[in-house]
C-alpha cells in the first residue's frame, strides 16, 4: 500500500500511534530513562510492519485480522482488583502451595500473591517494581531476547507492556518449588488488551520452575499479548510450563523466547485449551555447547477455535540436543496449527534434533495444518521430524476390544492416552498432576470423545 504523508488513508496502526503519544505524556511509573526509547523503537517497528497477514509464511494458516479489527483498548490499570482468593484457588496450579504472583487484567494484585518469605537467592517480584528496584539487571536483560524484528506482536508488547513477573536466580541458587504466575482475565470491553511481560533470568548453575496460567473469570473478547523472555545461564536448569485457558471468545498471542548458554537444560511445555484464536511463538537459541532443550505441547480445540504453535529452535553451537513433541486433538470446525523449524547453523556439528507433531481429528470438519521444517547448514548432525494427521488407529481399537473393552471405552482410552503422552512428559510432578486432571475432565466433557463416528 502506498501512502503519502499528507491526506493518506488511515492505517490500522494509527490508533496505536495516537495512544502511544498519550501514553508517553502520562507515564509516571518511575521506570528508568532507558525504557522509553526501547518502547519507542518497538512502536516504530510495529508502525512499519503492522499486523501480519496470511501472506507472511510464518502466519500462513493463522489469520489475525480479527485481532487487527478489534478496537485498541490497552488496559493500563485494571479497575478489577476485587477478585477473591477463593476464585483464584479454582484455577489449575492453585493447589500448589508456595510462591504465586497474581495479575488481574494485567495488573499485579499484591494481596492475592504470595512472595518468598526469606531470601533464597531467587528474586521474585512484579516487573513494574523491578524496573525501579533492579535497574541494571533489567537493562542487561529486558527486551534482548524477544526481538521486535521477529514479531509484530512482540514489538507491540515491548511498546506497551504494563507489568508481569520478574524472576532472577543468582548463581548456584535453586528453588525447588514452582513459581506460579496467574494471569486472570475478567469480562471487559471488546478489545481490552493486556500486554504482559515476564522476564526470567537463571544465572550460572541455578535451577527454576516457572508455571504460567492464563485463566479467566467469565467470558469476553479480550486480547492477551504476552511475552516471556528467559535467559538461561551456564549449567542452569529451567522448567517452564504454560497453561492457556482463556475465554472461548478471547484472543491470545504469547511468545516464549529463551537463550541457552553452555550446558543448560531448558524444558518448555505449552498446554492450550482456551481462546478463539491463540498463537504461541516459541523461540529457543542454543548458544552454548552441550545444552538440552525439550519442547512439548498439547492443544485441544473445538467449535471455531484456532490454536497455533510456531517454533524456531536455533542450534548455534555444537553438541546440543533439542526434542519436540506436540500433540493436537481437534473437534468441531476447529483448527490446530503447528509450525516447527529447526535451524542448524554451520558451527553446530553433532546436533541431535527431533521433532514430532501428531494430530487427532475428532470431527470431519476439524483441520490440522502441520509444517515441520529442517534447515541444516552443518554436515555432521542427526535431525529427524515427523507429522501425522488422522483419526484413531483401528489396530489399537481392535486390540482393546479383543480384550473385552467396549468400543466407546476403547476410543476414550486412546484419546486420553494421546493427550497423556504429552502430559506425562511434564517434569514438575505437581503441575503434571493438575494438568492431567484438567485435561481428563475437558476430554470427558467432550461429547465426541466417546461417540461412535
Amino acid at each position: 500500500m502506498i501512502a503519502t504523508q499528507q491526506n493518506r488513508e488511515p492505517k490500522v496502526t494509527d490508533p496505536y500511534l495516537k495512544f502511544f503519544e498519550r501514553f508517553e505524556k502520562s507515564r509516571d511509573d518511575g521506570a528508568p530513562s532507558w525504557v522509553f526509547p526501547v518502547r519507542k523503537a518497538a512502536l516504530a517497528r510495529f508502525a512499519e510492519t503492522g499486523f501480519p497477514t496470511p501472506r507472511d509464511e510464518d502466519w500462513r494458516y493463522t489469520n489475525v485480522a480479527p485481532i487487527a479489527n478489534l478496537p485498541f483498548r490497552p488496559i493500563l490499570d485494571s479497575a478489577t482488583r476485587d477478585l477473591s482468593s477463593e476464585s483464584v484457588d479454582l484455577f489449575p496450579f492453585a493447589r500448589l502451595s508456595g510462591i504465586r504472583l497474581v495479575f488481574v487484567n494485567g495488573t499485579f494484585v499484591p494481596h492475592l500473591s504470595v512472595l518468598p518469605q526469606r531470601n533464597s537467592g531467587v528474586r521474585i517480584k512484579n516487573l513494574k517494581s523491578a524496573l525501579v528496584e533492579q535497574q541494571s539487571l533489567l537493562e542487561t536483560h529486558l527486551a534482548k531476547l524477544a526481538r521486535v524484528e521477529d514479531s509484530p506482536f512482540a514489538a507491540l508488547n515491548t511498546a506497551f507492556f504494563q507489568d508481569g513477573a520478574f524472576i532472577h536466580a543468582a548463581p548456584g541458587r535453586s528453588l525447588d518449588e514452582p513459581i506460579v504466575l496467574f494471569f486472570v482475565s475478567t469480562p471487559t470491553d471488546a478489545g481490552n488488551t493486556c500486554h504482559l511481560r515476564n522476564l526470567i533470568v537463571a544465572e550460572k548453575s541455578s535451577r527454576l520452575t516457572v508455571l504460567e496460567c492464563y485463566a479467566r473469570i467469565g467470558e469476553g473478547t479480550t486480547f492477551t499479548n504476552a511475552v516471556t523472555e528467559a535467559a538461561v545461564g551456564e549449567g542452569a536448569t529451567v522448567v517452564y510450563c504454560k497453561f492457556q485457558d482463556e475465554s472461548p471468545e478471547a484472543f491470545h498471542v504469547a511468545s516464549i523466547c529463551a537463550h541457552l548458554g553452555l550446558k543448560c537444560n531448558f524444558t518448555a511445555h505449552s498446554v492450550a485449551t482456551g481462546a478463539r484464536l491463540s498463537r504461541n511463538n516459541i523461540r529457543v537459541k542454543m548458544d552454548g555447547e552441550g545444552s538440552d532443550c525439550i519442547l512439548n505441547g498439547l492443544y485441544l480445540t473445538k467449535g471455531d477455535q484456532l490454536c497455533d504453535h510456531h517454533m524456531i529452535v536455533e542450534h548455534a553451537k555444537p553438541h546440543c540436543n533439542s526434542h519436540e513433541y506436540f500433540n493436537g486433538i481437534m473437534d468441531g470446525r476447529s483448527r490446530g496449527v503447528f509450525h516447527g523449524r529447526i535451524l542448524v547453523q554451520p558451527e553446530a556439528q553433532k546436533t541431535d534434533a527431533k521433532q514430532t507433531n501428531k494430530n487427532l481429528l475428532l470431527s470431519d470438519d476439524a483441520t490440522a495444518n502441520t509444517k515441520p521444517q529442517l534447515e541444516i547448514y552443518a554436515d555432521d548432525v542427526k535431525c529427524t521430524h515427523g507429522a501425522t494427521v488422522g483419526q484413531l488407529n483401528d489396530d489399537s481399537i481392535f486390540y482393546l476390544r479383543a480384550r473385552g473393552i467396549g468400543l466407546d471405552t476403547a476410543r476414550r482410552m486412546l484419546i486420553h492416552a494421546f493427550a497423556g503422552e504429552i502430559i506425562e512428559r511434564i517434569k514438575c510432578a505437581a503441575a503434571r498432576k493438575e494438568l492431567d486432571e484438567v485435561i481428563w475432565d475437558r476430554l470427558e466433557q467432550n461429547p465426541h470423545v466417546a461417540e461412535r463416528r
Partner: protein
Amino acid sequence: MLEIKNLHAGVESKAILKGVNLTIQPGEVHAVMGPNGSGKSTLAQILAGREGYEISRGEVIYAGNNLLEMDPEERAREGVFLAFQYPVEIPGVNSTYFLKAALNEIRKHQGQPELDAVEFLALVKQKMKLLDLGEDLLKRPVNEGFSGGEKKRNEIFQMAVLEPKLAILDETDSGLDIDALKIVSNGVNRLKRPDNAQLLITHYQRLLNYIVPDHVHVLFDGRIVRSGGRQLALELEEKGYDWIIREEPQFA
C-alpha cells in the same frame, strides 16, 4: 465348544477362506498349520471379530451362539481370546490400567464381582511368575518399546490373567528364541484345563514339540485339506507342505 461350518470369507472380491470346517471340544488342543498365504491368520482374525472381512457363506457356533454376529468385545467377554501375531503398541495406555479394565469388563459380563486394585495386583503378581516377566513391564504403556519376545510373552500373560475358554494363538512362536519359546509353551500348558480349549496357529512344527496338540489340521488355499493326530505335524516337518499339496488331487 467351537464349530466352524463351511466358512467362506475374503476381502473385497478376493476369497481367502473357501469352506473351512473345524470342531473343537472342551479340553482339546488343536493346531492349524499351513504355508504362508493359506488363510491361517485370516481365520484367527475372523474368529476374534476383526472388521474388514466379508463372510460369504458358512457359520461359526461358539458355546451355542452365533459367534460371527458378536462384537469383538462380546466375544472376549464370552471367553474368546486371541494372542496376536503382532501385538499392538499403545503409547499412553498403562499396561496395568488396560489389563484391569479388560479383566473387570469380562468379570462383570460373567456376573463376577470386579477386582479392586489390591486384588488385581495380587493376581497379576502370581501370573507374572508363570511367564517370567518383570513387574516393571506393568508400569509401561501397553507393548510400547517391548522386544518381540516380550510382546509374545505379554500376550500369554494376558491370557493367564483373563482365563479364556477358547484361546487362539496366532503364530505365537514366531520371533521367539528357544528359551522364550519354552517359557511361553510352559505358560500355555499350565493354562490348559478340561473346560477350556486352545487353537494354535503356526507355520512350523517347532511349537508343537512343547505344546502337544490333540489334533493337527493342514490349511491350504483356504480349506483344511488334511486332519490327523500329532504325527501329522511331524510328517509335515519331515516332508514339507509340498507333500500334502502333491497328494491333493485338485492341486496336483
